């Protein structure tokens, strides 16, 4: 048992950014352990993707290739990766914490009698502690937890989007060797039949190019209170957006949702109103130039990434802010 294996993810024939981030995390772990880094890419046509990965600083790249892996299924990926891990015997297997990985990696780990340490934001070492320490967020980002893997057998880890820098895994002088492994999979072993991905309806709101965004969360309490934030957005000339629960409740249309399942935005100004700042929301707006948070809970995680914060009752602060914005524009 040695070595760190990263399973790089592709989306629509390209290496996903989160895949490079996982590779950077795996390299970080390899350096800490003094263990070699290898990578795997799974699919039906992985030749060019494998060459792209092999150009980075790692020991080798394995193409796990089979026609039945053309489209992602949990069954297909679990069978294929189980065979690869049995053959390669890595000490650690690192994944990006993507929707796809969340769908299969817990079962893959369980097949080895192991438990995935998922959604990791940091990997560190501490004196007197055997093995790496993996930090995850608990209670919707309001608490950090340090986890350790005990026992033998491979340790499975997935890393959160944005926690490691995709560019950290540098280009190599010479390309790493590429091998192809063809897993044994029978069509009958794949029990689910997925369709091609589709988008729901037409996207008429493009939050991605908005310069000013007023975004509202659970703190607004009721659909009847939405006009309070709409008035602020109008005064600022900003787009109105929301965190997931607001769209789940039907208070604003789904197309105004910011976060991992909605749109990713990077405006000049992002005003988060009554949004606590769960990671699923933060990944959608972390790229904003200036973040303002208004929340009654001074310990809300949103304040950790805000440039300016007002810890107060939004039902008082927002109307006051609307008035101040109007006054400033006159």
């Amino acid at each position, binding site marked *: 048992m040695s070595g760190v294996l990263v399973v790089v993810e592709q989306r629509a024939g390209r290496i996903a950014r989160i895949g490079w981030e996982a590779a950077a995390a795996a390299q970080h772990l390899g350096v800490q352990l003094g263990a070699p880094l290898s990578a795997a890419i799974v699919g039906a046509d992985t030749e060019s993707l494998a060459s792209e990965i092999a150009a980075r600083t790692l020991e080798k790249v394995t193409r796990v290739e089979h026609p039945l892996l053309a489209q992602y299924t*949990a069954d297909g990926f679990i069978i294929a990766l189980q065979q690869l891990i049995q053959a390669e015997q890595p000490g650690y297997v690192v994944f990006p914490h*993507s*929707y796809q990985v*969340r*769908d*299969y990696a*817990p*079962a893959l*780990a*369980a097949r080895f*009698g192991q*438990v995935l*340490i*998922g959604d990791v934001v940091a990997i560190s070492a501490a004196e007197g502690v055997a093995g790496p*320490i993996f930090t*995850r*967020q*608990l*209670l919707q980002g309001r*608490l*950090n937890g*340090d986890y*350790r*893997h*005990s026992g033998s*057998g491979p340790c499975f880890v997935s890393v959160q989007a944005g926690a490691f820098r995709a560019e950290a895994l540098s280009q190599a002088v010479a390309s790493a060797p590429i091998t192809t492994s063809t897993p044994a999979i029978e069509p009958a072993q794949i*029990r*689910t*039949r*997925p*369709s091609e*991905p*589709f*988008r*729901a309806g037409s996207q008429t709101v493009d939050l991605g190019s908005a310069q000013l965004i007023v975004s509202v969360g*659970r703190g607004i309490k009721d659909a009847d209170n939405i006009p309070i934030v709409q008035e602020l957005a109008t005064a600022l000339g900003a787009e109105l957006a929301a965190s*997931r629960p607001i769209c789940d409740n*039907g208070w604003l249309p789904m197309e105004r949702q910011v976060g991992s*399942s*909605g*749109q990713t935005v990077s405006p000049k*100004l992002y005003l988060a109103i009554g949004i*606590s700042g769960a990671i699923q929301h933060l990944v959608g707006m972390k790229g904003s130039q200036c*973040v*303002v948070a208004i929340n009654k809970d001074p310990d809300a995680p949103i*304040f*950790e*990434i*805000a*440039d*300016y*914060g*007002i*810890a107060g009752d939004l039902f008082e*602060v927002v*109307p*006051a*802010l609307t008035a101040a*914005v109007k006054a*400033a524009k006159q």
Partner: protein
Amino acid sequence: MKIIVAIKQVPERDAQVRIAPSGKWIQEFDLQYALNESDAYALEEALQLKEKSGAASSEVIVVSAGPERIGTTIREALAKGADRAIQIACDDLGARDALGVARLLAAAVKPENPDLILTGLQSEDLGLGQTGVIVAELLGLPHATLILHVEKTESGVTVKRELEEGWFQTIELPTPAVLTIQSGGNKLRYATLMGIKRAKNKEVRQLTAAELGGDSAPLVLLEHVSMPQKKKSTQMLSGTAQEAAAALVEKLKFEARVL
């Protein structure tokens, strides 16, 4: 159709987070607890599937593991319309890893031979998002995650799965199967007075973790918790709402220069 819904009781969202003297979890004595949100959507989906099927034999059974206090959450699920419940007494739920918890649930639901097992996609406290997927693996069943909608077909179910960045796909699965449910697919119902009354007479089968044979040592250990460090230096603006709002507009105009 027989549907199992695995639910979890979690601390209320706005509960105060104070680290316990052990340094391994938060202080629990003054916490309020609630049904995990995506589990509430899983229950709603199950109740709607039962109602649509119309068959008298259709049944929704909730299962939950934890200390005695989870009884209130189980009663809430029964009041909303679940037919009966299985309560697994387990005082050290937080010390078990995802595999340990999934083993308990799998052992408890296996004798029921359900057509579907639903659960929320992840808990709001530990956020592991693994339990449903591991239960499927342990029971040898197909699964799908992040599901917004379930439709019964002749041989199984067709589900709508959420992907990243506003994309979706449909998946056909044979039953029995395990599905983890994303929030937002349905409108949640409230318990009616009649429902609350009826819940009192519904069966809650009591099991213990020990009799389910789920006492193996965890492989992944939560050793230490801490409050997150601020990454940015946030300027907090104080005063009355008017003062803070005026100060913010000044800062945005002349310091951040974004207005």
